[in-house]
């Protein structure tokens, strides 16, 4: 399978199964309209016939022979040989090694798009106690088999509302990890309201990454990300985020926001955050009920596509000046990305990754929290619901509707299980709106890479 497109004046051909990314000229791009595998060594007559009015015959044949060379080298029209790995025992029986720890089902903001219903996931405001936090650490240590690197994301609601417990959990984990031969990587996702110098110093020391939630321009942020009294949060959080980023130096962090129908010109929000001094930025489409005023719908897609293209151009402009900006959704590693097996199923939710609520209940991931029917167990209850774990372990590109025929499969890995469940009512049915945006982002991301490579 191949996917060809032209963006920013560059003709790009993706060979899906080998991961090949080829930049081609007009002629070669045109030839691909007329050929299908298996390819013959000699340029087919129909190709010459079709293009001879516009190109010289020898030129057509030469371009074809280059395509044939790629084909022989298994980087054009290569086959999908990965199905055999989809049911790999090692993946199906993978140990749990990553956890989203909901230390506070409570929040000090009232963002209208919050999927967690203002922080409590619809089930009342709760704070995790230290005992439960410690049990979560023990659970990971004991259930992670031979995995060395363990991930733990402090999440909420707003985790800074329970920061003393966060600190104690980190301390406990650091005391215990050596005995098990493990290495915890902590991350935290925060709205920033409660950030202080003390907290920043602790976070910068202990957390390998930190996600700072802000939507971009003040007007955009304050329309949605409001305080409990209805006022905007921008002025409170912006200066704290700047302080944190400055103190953090080279360590990873990023500012992340959400766009809605209200700011389909979200490239300006990315640029605003960049102008404010942040160079690791993520702005993503909101996931919500399509009935909401600000919900993104299919009719917004053309605008969103144009906006992603504009953003790609802006990022190129910044990079060409020798400056640094990372837009998360445009990050693609063409050299050393993950192995094919990893790409068969994206997030590992419900299999390698679980979410734990303040009460110690276990769910497949943070977005399933509060959906009773998806509860997988509890920290007290010993074993996980193995049937559910198997179900998620088995969810892969080959059994999700449309994924195995989708050109984006090895970049996307089958989308978000939770989104699929929320929108399509089925973990195995991708949400087409999300798919369209995903594909556009991948096209833009690869174009940015191609443009940079050409200008080097």
């Amino acid at each position: 399978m191949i996917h060809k497109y032209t963006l920013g004046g560059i003709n790009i051909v993706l060979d899906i199964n080998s991961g090949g990314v080829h930049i081609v000229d007009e002629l070669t791009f045109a030839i691909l309209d007329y050929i299908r595998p298996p390819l013959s060594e000699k340029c087919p007559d129909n190709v010459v016939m079709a293009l001879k009015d516009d190109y010289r015959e020898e030129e057509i044949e030469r371009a074809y022979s280059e395509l044939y060379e790629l084909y022989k080298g298994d980087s054009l029209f290569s086959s999908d040989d990965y199905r055999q790995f989809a049911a790999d025992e090692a993946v199906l029986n993978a140990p749990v090694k990553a956890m989203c720890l909901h230390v506070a089902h409570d929040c000090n903001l009232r963002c209208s798009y919050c999927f967690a219903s203002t922080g409590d996931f619809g089930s009342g405001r709760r704070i995790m106690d230290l005992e439960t936090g410690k049990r979560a650490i023990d659970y990971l240590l004991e259930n992670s088999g031979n995995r060395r690197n363990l991930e733990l994301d402090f999440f909420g609601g707003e985790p800074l509302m329970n920061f003393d417990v966060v600190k104690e959990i980190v301390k406990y984990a650091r005391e215990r990890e050596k005995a098990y031969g493990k290495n915890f990587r902590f991350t935290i996702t925060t709205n920033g309201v409660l950030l202080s110098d003390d907290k920043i110093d602790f976070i910068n020391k202990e957390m390998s990454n930190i996600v700072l939630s802000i939507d971009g321009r003040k007007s955009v942020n304050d329309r949605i990300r409001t305080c409990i009294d209805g006022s905007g949060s921008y002025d409170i959080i912006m200066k704290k985020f700047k302080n944190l980023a400055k103190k953090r130096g080279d360590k990873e962090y990023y500012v992340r926001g959400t766009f809605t129908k209200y700011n389909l010109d979200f490239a300006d929000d990315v640029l605003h955050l960049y102008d404010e001094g942040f160079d690791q930025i993520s702005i993503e489409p909101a996931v919500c009920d399509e009935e909401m005023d600000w919900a993104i719908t299919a009719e917004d897609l053309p605008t969103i596509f144009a906006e992603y293209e504009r953003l790609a151009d802006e990022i190129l402009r910044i990079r060409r000046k020798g400056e640094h900006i990372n837009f998360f959704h445009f990050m693609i590693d063409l050299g050393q990305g993950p192995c094919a097996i990893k790409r068969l199923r994206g997030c590992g939710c419900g299999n390698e990754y679980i979410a734990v609520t303040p009460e110690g209940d276990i769910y497949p991931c943070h977005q399933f929290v509060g959906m009773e029917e998806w509860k997988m167990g509890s920290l007290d209850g010993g074993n996980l619901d193995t049937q559910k774990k198997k179900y998620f372990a088995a969810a892969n590109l080959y059994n999700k509707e449309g994924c195995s025929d989708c050109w984006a499969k090895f970049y996307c890995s089958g989308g978000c299980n939770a989104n699929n469940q929320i929108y399509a009512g089925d973990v195995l049915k991708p949400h087409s709106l999300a798919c369209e945006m995903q594909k556009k982002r991948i096209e833009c991301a690869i174009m940015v890479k191609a443009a940079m490579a050409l200008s080097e």
Partner: protein
Amino acid sequence: MKHIITLNKKNLKKTAAKGGCGECQTSCQSACKTSCTVANQKCEK
């Protein structure tokens, strides 16, 4: 080649045989998280 420039030298197929060790970061793609396309993840091997 005159008509084609290939950007990546590594073939995905070669990664399957020794892959799947599971040491790399889990990669949530949702809007509320450390979201990213799988393709930008680092291999830990």
